[in-house]
């Protein structure tokens, strides 16, 4: 098990110089795609952010005005805050539940049939998940509230209450993704030698103890990898908000993706949307670098 960046063998340009034409040929789609859909947008995105472009009239250069506006826009800061809550709640619960389910899978020797049942929500698009949970959690006819009412607990409008809505969305997406996360953890657990557990059992260690002293430390590299990948995905929360709450109630679920989308494509304020996207990019870039450093740190720990 090595979720690390494997090194390709030394790249001696002198040997087989005939590789260059082949490489160029094989890389044509990727190079073209990178140029058009990554490099060019990077340049264009920054450029648009310095204009007042609205899709309809020609763009006019306005310098850093969009950025100045952004720093005093309470909705922008609210969007960052709401997104942060979402990411922390979603990633935190998804990692813990995913790991828990994976351990359960291993301890109970669960078959692939049961595993695929747990995976089902992950195969369903966010849009559909939003619609189904909107119904399940509805304050009037939703099953969850019917059950809460039946057992005498208080009912809630989970998506419609501004104190609960963002947590609801975070946990709904945890529900959708936890089966997938669990399978990734499970794959990691299976690479741990059973000898370790047997030795621990001989020494009288409880299952709980071997989890903390064997499973968790051995899973550190894969945990870091899952964390990085899920975190990048988690920042992109849009679909559920768009279908289930439309950013509301009030601004309670107006996450950064949704706010940028609305500014750019509904209010046609492309320049302002682009400026926010630049700031978001800077934030994600910083986060990823920090996480990659953490990933490297764990690598050296294990090797």
């Amino acid at each position, binding site marked *: 098990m090595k979720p690390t960046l494997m090194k390709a063998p030394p790249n001696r340009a002198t040997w087989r110089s005939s590789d260059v034409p082949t*490489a160029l040929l094989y890389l044509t789609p*990727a190079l073209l*795609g990178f140029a058009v859909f990554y490099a060019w947008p990077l340049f264009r995105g920054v450029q648009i952010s310095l204009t007042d472009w609205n899709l309809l009239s020609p763009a006019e250069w306005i310098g850093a005005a969009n950025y100045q506006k952004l720093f005093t826009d309470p909705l922008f800061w609210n969007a960052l805050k709401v997104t942060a809550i979402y990411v922390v709640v979603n990633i935190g619960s998804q990692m813990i539940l995913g790991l828990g389910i994976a351990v359960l899978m291993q301890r109970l020797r669960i078959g692939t049939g049961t595993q695929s049942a747990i995976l089902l*929500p992950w195969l369903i*698009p966010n849009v559909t998940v939003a619609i189904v949970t909107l119904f399940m959690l509805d304050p009037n006819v939703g099953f969850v509230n019917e059950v809460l009412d039946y057992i005498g607990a208080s009912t809630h409008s989970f998506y419609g209450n501004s104190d609960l809505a963002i947590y609801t969305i975070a946990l709904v997406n945890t529900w959708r993704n936890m089966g997938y996360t669990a399978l990734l953890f499970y794959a990691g657990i299976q*690479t741990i030698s059973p000898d370790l557990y047997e030795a621990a059992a001989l020494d009288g260690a409880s299952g709980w103890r071997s989890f903390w002293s064997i499973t968790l430390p051995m899973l550190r590299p894969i945990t870091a990898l899952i964390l990085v990948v899920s975190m*990048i995905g988690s920042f*992109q929360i849009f679909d559920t908000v768009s279908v289930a709450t439309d950013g509301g109630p009030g601004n309670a679920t107006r996450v950064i993706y949704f706010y940028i989308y609305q500014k*750019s494509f509904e209010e046609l304020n492309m320049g302002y949307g682009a400026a926010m996207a630049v700031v978001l990019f800077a934030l994600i870039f910083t986060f990823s670098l920090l996480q990659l450093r953490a990933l490297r740190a764990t690598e050296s720990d294990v090797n």
Partner: protein
Amino acid sequence: MKNKPRITVSRLIERIVLVFLLLITVFPFFWMLRTAFVANANIFSDSMSLIPKEPTIVNFKRVLGLSTTEESLAAGGNGQQLDFFLYLGNSLLFTAVVVACQVTFSALAAYTFSRLRFRGRDALFTVFLSGMMIPPIFSMLPNFALVRSLGWIDSFAGILAPYLLITPFAIFFLRQFFLGISREVEEAARIDGAGRFQILTRIVLPMASGPLTTLAIIQAVGAWNEYMWPQLVGRDDSVKLLNVAVAAFAKSSPNSQPDWAGLMAAASLQVIPMLILLIIFGKKIVSSLGFSGVK
């Protein structure tokens, strides 16, 4: 040594937790299907029975546009329909093209980065990889401007373009596997006079069929789930994806009382294909997903 699971209190608790987990993952979909067979008029009165008291297929009929507008309005809808098979076809086409291109082009690039030798190879790979850090919403604005200026709004070309040519994650993923495959067979084939392309298609790709399947599954689920970009550039019926249509159907729901039964019928129509897929290929999917995180 395989010790049989003993029946102890902790085992019992673990089993109960598992059953509970299965229930919360599967039950909402069962409930969705069940509600799809309840008439809107009975949603309140029949809100708890496991099997609808008066099952009806009126919801499917009106969602699919098989009932008249009057019938549809009487059943609590707003006359809105889903041209289901058209959108399903669009979504299948979109997913198939995305997966085929992503797997092919990523395999070519991954092979290049793992086997061919040229100056700047590893630097270029790092540059590609760093593309993963660009948030999709960031590229979406310039991409929209580009697709618009090309006149590709409401065309498959426009919906597909940003997905096809490069997928940094897929290149990274396949390169890892190619690096782990022994070169000896390749060297032998080379001595026998096989060209690069033959080595790739006859030796490397077959050996990597496991990871290629895994990648195809992950990318297919991702493509099937795509919403933000397709709903921006593909609003015309001829290119509308099922996701986009279902979301629009949900948003057009009357404000007074949502058309729950109709919504659940629409959602069921979208879940059923995945359910069939999972029942047939569940084992394959589960066992191959194990590849993705590890190694």
